[in-house]
């Protein structure tokens, strides 16, 4: 990085006979080597680059050079747009009067150990800083990542809930929307909530509607497969397209979603519309006395797979 960095200074720059050439505007130095290469002198409206070897003397109040006024304008003109224009207030006070800077601008280690040695040491220290910073950063960010993900990945326990409905009370092949009270858990908060499911009673395994479509397609998880019964299909009320709630249309004997008109048959089979999969069946159990219990699962919407949410 041999880019030249400039520092604003601000004292008169004199020729050999004591005539003012201009005012010191900046000091040009090579950053990586901490080497002053020249002075920028402002004379009226133009800036000139004065090589450092023409400087004879630097004091707190002035800089003397061997440059004659007449030859001064022969020096290359400094183009401010090519360099940093740092506003003067940006520098700490005292910086611009620190004329020793021209002599001692090299850091201590560079002066003591020589350019090469010091630079490799500095690089080593720079790397050490980076390692320490990375060590702190990683050991802080990893737990934080886990902390943020912890709530998102807290597993939900499957809980069976009794719906308070008995199988024998349901009509055959006619979906019944059943609402029940559930508790939704969000972190430390438990909120009572109204949930609903579709209950569809079938006459038995011989009923063609008794096999839900997602079972046919092999979308079911082992849990749903294990707890399925040919006498009953329990459908989630949530449309797998974008989450609206399909309604049962008695006359047509179809579920039709009001949002984008996905159309499903009694067993959840999609026969039209944008939904990517059939309606989702839920695991259900029927007790000896016909009491129905279900697990209210929720699934990702908008995808072909029946992927359970957490």
């Amino acid at each position, binding site marked *: 990085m041999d880019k030249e960095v400039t520092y604003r200074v601000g004292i008169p720059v004199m020729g050999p006979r004591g005539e003012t050439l201009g005012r010191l505007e900046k000091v040009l130095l090579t950053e990586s080597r901490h080497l002053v290469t020249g002075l920028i002198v402002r004379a009226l409206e133009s800036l000139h680059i004065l090589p450092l070897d023409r400087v004879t003397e630097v004091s707190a109040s002035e800089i003397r050079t061997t440059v004659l006024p007449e030859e001064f304008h022969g020096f290359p003109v400094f183009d401010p747009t090519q360099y940093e224009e740092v506003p003067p207030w940006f520098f700490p006070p005292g910086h611009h009067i620190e004329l020793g800077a021209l002599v*001692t601008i090299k*850091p*201590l280690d560079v002066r003591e150990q020589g350019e090469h040695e010091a630079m490799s040491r500095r690089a080593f*220290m*720079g790397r050490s800083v980076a390692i320490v910073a990375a060590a702190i950063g990683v050991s802080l960010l990893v*737990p934080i990542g886990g902390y943020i993900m912890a709530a998102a990945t807290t597993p939900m326990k499957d809980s069976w809930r009794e719906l308070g409905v008995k199988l024998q009370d349901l009509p055959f092949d006619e979906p019944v929307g059943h609402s029940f009270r559930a508790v939704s858990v969000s972190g430390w908060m438990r909120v009572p909530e109204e949930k609903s499911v579709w209950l569809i009673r079938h006459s038995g395994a011989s009923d063609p509607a008794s096999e839900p479509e997602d079972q046919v397609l092999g979308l079911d998880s082992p849990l749903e497969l294990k707890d399925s019964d040919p006498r009953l299909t329990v459908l989630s009320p949530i449309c797998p397209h974008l989450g609206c709630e399909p309604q049962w249309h008695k006359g047509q004997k179809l579920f039709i979603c009001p949002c984008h008109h996905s159309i499903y048959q009694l067993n959840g089979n999609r026969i039209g519309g944008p939904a990517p999969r059939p309606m989702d069946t839920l695991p259900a159990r029927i007790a000896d006395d016909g009491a129905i219990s279900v697990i209210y699962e929720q699934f990702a919407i908008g995808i072909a797979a029946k992927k359970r949410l957490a």
Partner: protein
Amino acid sequence: MGHKIFAYLDERIRISSLMGFLLNEPIPGGSRWAYIPGSMVFFVLILQFVTGMMLAFYYGGTPDHAWDSVNYIDHLTYNGVAVGRLIRGIHYWGSSIMVIAVGIHLLQVFLWGAYKRPREIMWLVGVLLLALTMTASFSGYLLPWDERAYWGTIVGTNMIGLVPFVGEVIKDAIRGGVGLGALTLSHFFTLHTMILPTLFILFVLLHMVIFRRVGPAGPFSGSPEKLEATKDTFYPRQVLMDSFGMLAIFIVILALAVLRPPELESVANPSNAAYSPTPAWYFDWIFELLKLIRPEIVGVVGLPVLIAIVLVFLPFVDRKPVRSPFRRPISVLSTLFVLSAMLGLSIMAENGYKKLVDVDRVAMVRGQGVFNTAGCIGCHTLFGKGGKVGPDLSEEGLVGHSEHWLTVQFLNSKAHFPDSIMPDFTYLTPQQQHDLAMYISSLGRMGWPDPTKTP
């Protein structure tokens, strides 16, 4: 690639000159380990910001949820790692360590004479930052809404109420009413998470701008020529030293967070008048001092005013330019006196508190088994369940009985209460006695149900 990005940014936002400004700051006399406390304070502050934001992720700032949410955070795990407890532990210990780091920083600036002209304003901003740190500790104390938080805040705000004329009004304004309640909690939460961080950012920035304007004070001895000759830039040596300091303080905080995770006492119970609150350890000396000063009002008003006056007027009264502590015997001796007084008072205060048993969590779990099989619940109520013959034990761990006292109570309760009808559980083995004592000592302090495991 990195080079290209750098060049791109440099052209647009002049990043190299900015970096140069930030990193090439001249340090008269060269880099020193003595200069790291300021950076350490800054680091802990950032750590508090980051972990605080994380806690706010899951915190519920109302009395009916605050405690539950903190308990929830305590139970958050990820891949078996108790990340929630870790983050809260870092924030909890971070606040203590920050008070220490600020204290060291202040002490060093004082001993180095670095507050003297022309650095008076920087010192004043520092004093303000100290006040912000203390306010942050005080306001954060209430947020878990457990017994300690509630009663500690009752006492703290009551003290404000003692200030003549305006005290009552200020107290009620802080509390958001006469009593401690939902408004107090949201006031404190807002203060802790919005007002204070804003002020911190503002004044830390001001502190640093002034620092760069006026430059580092450098060592207190050495001629200007020598300091000039040994001048070094901030980067890389001082930066490296600072980063080691930060790493060290980070390791300390992490170790404390892992080895001594913060406790959560049972949820604030405004009717538990038996609870005796203790202040955070760094207020211990004030607590003890206030007990000595009578009438009370003199201490409550006088002490903070005195501290504020000393700190604020110090650089304007002490105007001799001499900086070396070896040539300022009065300053150094009075510092030593104040420090040892603070230490002595703190020790006295700590000795005055009832020591709660250090609970061994493994024995605690075994003790719960003993509690259940021995039939204690037949007579004693625990968290709303159980018999009413014996006293409610839900907060028994906060009472402060020693393990010995508890063991005697199990085996021969008539030794403590001659009329006691509690049976003597003499069949308990010494191991079981120990485990049961641990469990009883934990009641009201830890072992809360895990809200992440939903039934």
